[in-house]
């Protein structure tokens, strides 16, 4: 048999190749980043001055435009004075990978500059609280309402036009209003997340619920299910795995709203930390904080996927990478490779 091709339309890859590509997905951007950080003749539009020479306005450690630096060197050579010395560098907003990796640790140990500012772990905790309450409040109301909209056309007609209308209002636009109502602490931020999530959630949930196969509902009716039982015993369990996946996706959206929510009222949380660090030009800390958000989001998503797998044994939602990883680590069988039960000869 010929070797399988890397690129064939809709054909499964071998597990080895698929793992390789998964690693490559992270390695490729990292490699690109490293190239531009460590190879001095790639980009590096700035010069870091090591010795100012006779140029009186320069200091050692100064980061200036390469063009300006070259002009000073040329002037110095013409005037036969000491030319400044320096090496090519990248702008401060483009730290090298090692600096960012180091600051993944040091960001937690950097003491707040101003009194009243928070440490990174405190900021993170605040953000997580905001997200948690915002998303919980939205889900507690939004998911049941969405299920009702998807089940009863009358409720859908009554609710969805208005929900659709509010959905188009950007959540941050409610910022000032929320501060007026809820004060300046966490409450208005939670409210912004609720506004940003809730209206989408109702529509997404209603759409998912509508996808429940009508034949299942009819089958349940012929078995004697009444209205209430149809919703609770058929529609809800039938759409539960998809609802769970919707919730995972919506949680990602809630993280996006977090950033705008946190500048409302008294700025706080992770986005405030990012802004402060950017102000002090600690860009490696900025990157570290952004990467930490990414890691946090991915971890929560993967935990939810792992739990989802256990919750719905009859249906595999999006496969969890953590589960696959743990499975490999401990020699467990990956769930996707589980053999179907031997079928009875007819």
């Amino acid at each position, binding site marked *: 048999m010929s070797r399988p091709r890397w690129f064939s339309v809709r054909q499964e890859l071998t597990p080895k190749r698929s793992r390789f590509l998964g690693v490559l997905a992270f390695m490729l951007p990292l490699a690109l980043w490293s190239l531009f950080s460590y190879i001095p003749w790639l980009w590096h539009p700035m010069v870091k001055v090591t010795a100012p020479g006779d140029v009186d306005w320069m200091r050692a450690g100064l980061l200036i435009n390469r063009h300006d630096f070259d002009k000073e060197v040329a002037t110095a050579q013409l005037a036969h004075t000491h030319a400044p010395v320096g090496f090519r560098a990248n702008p401060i907003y483009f730290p090298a990978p090692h600096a960012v990796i180091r600051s993944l640790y040091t960001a937690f140990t950097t003491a707040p500059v101003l009194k009243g500012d928070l440490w990174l772990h405190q900021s993170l905790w605040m953000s997580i609280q905001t997200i948690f309450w915002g998303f919980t409040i939205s889900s507690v109301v939004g998911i049941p309402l969405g299920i009702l909209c998807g089940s009863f056309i009358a409720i859908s007609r009554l609710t969805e036009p208005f929900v659709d209308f509010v959905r188009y209002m950007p959540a941050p636009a409610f910022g000032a209003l929320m501060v007026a109502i809820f004060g300046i602490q966490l409450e208005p931020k939670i409210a912004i997340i609720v506004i940003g999530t809730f209206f989408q959630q109702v529509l997404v949930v209603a759409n998912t619920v509508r996808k429940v196969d009508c*034949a299942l509902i009819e089958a349940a009716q*012929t078995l004697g299910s009444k209205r209430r039982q149809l919703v609770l015993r058929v529609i809800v369990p039938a759409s539960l795995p998809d609802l769970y996946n919707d919730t995972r996706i919506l949680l990602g959206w809630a993280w996006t709203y977090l950033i705008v929510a946190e500048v409302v009222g008294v700025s706080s949380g992770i986005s405030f930390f990012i802004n402060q660090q950017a102000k002090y030009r600690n860009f490696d800390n900025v990157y570290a904080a952004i990467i930490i958000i990414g890691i946090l989001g991915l971890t929560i998503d993967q935990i939810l996927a792992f739990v989802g797998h256990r919750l719905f044994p009859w249906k595999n939602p999006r496969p969890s990478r953590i589960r696959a990883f743990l499975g490999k680590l401990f020699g467990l069988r990956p769930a996707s490779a589980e053999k179907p039960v031997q*079928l*009875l000869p007819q």
Partner: protein
Amino acid sequence: MSEPLPDYRDQSPAVAARFAKIKERPVVLEIDRLGRQFPGEHGPVVALHDISFKVHRREFVCVIGPSGCGKSTLIRIIAGLDEPTSGRMLVDGKETSGPCPERGMVFQGYTLFPWLTVKKNVMFGLKMQGMDGGQADREARQWIDLVGLTRFADTYPAQLSGGMKQRTAIARALAANPRVLLMDEPFGALDAQTRAQMQSHLLEIWRNVDVTILFITHDLDEAIFLADRILVLKAHPGEVQEVIEVPVPRPRNLSQLNSPEFLATRRRLEELIHPRVDAHAHEHLPIIRLTQVGDDVE
């Protein structure tokens, strides 16, 4: 030259006695001048017109007809999933409408609840009727044993083959203790071999359970093999064309497929369902010859 086929109306004494016995039993399902119209672009389209028939207790009736004759509409109306525009329906002499477990249904597309195991699927109807868990569990096990899925009681439907799914669906419908079991082309999606096994299996179940079956199919052999009587519908509008009492004796087995009574019935059904093939001669496809002269396959 084989001997000519008997008339499909000729019944052996045993078969005639059996039909006489069936007619003495009480009528379970009565359909009385049932009609169904759908709104169409050029006025209402009549899907079913003036359908009347009676089904006796423990009778096996097949409904057959060309595509578009409204077989599925008819069974959906009887199941209560669609409303008739005229006429009425009686179960045990009482007029009824709307879905109800007394008229159980087995669908072509299985429609098992994928989040429930085989046993829980079978228990569904019992739970809906308010039976407590323990008793529902015991009853469900009986039905699962009856359809031969004992080993698969705790399996999810996704792991079952088509035939096993349909057996689960039959057990689920029977567990709710229906007066009439409605089956809408239940074996249509199965391969020929599984289908034949399911037909024998269904007859076996029917013989052992107090249930009346109304079975829709477009397969002539299936209808003759299973039915006591065959209700032949015609299309545009959907009307009862003829009711045939199948002269093939019971118990049925596959070797009867070539018996004279079977072939006679089959020929009659073909006449009714595919009338005068030459009438459609003008429908021949305008095929252009794309092969070389002399390169013929026939």
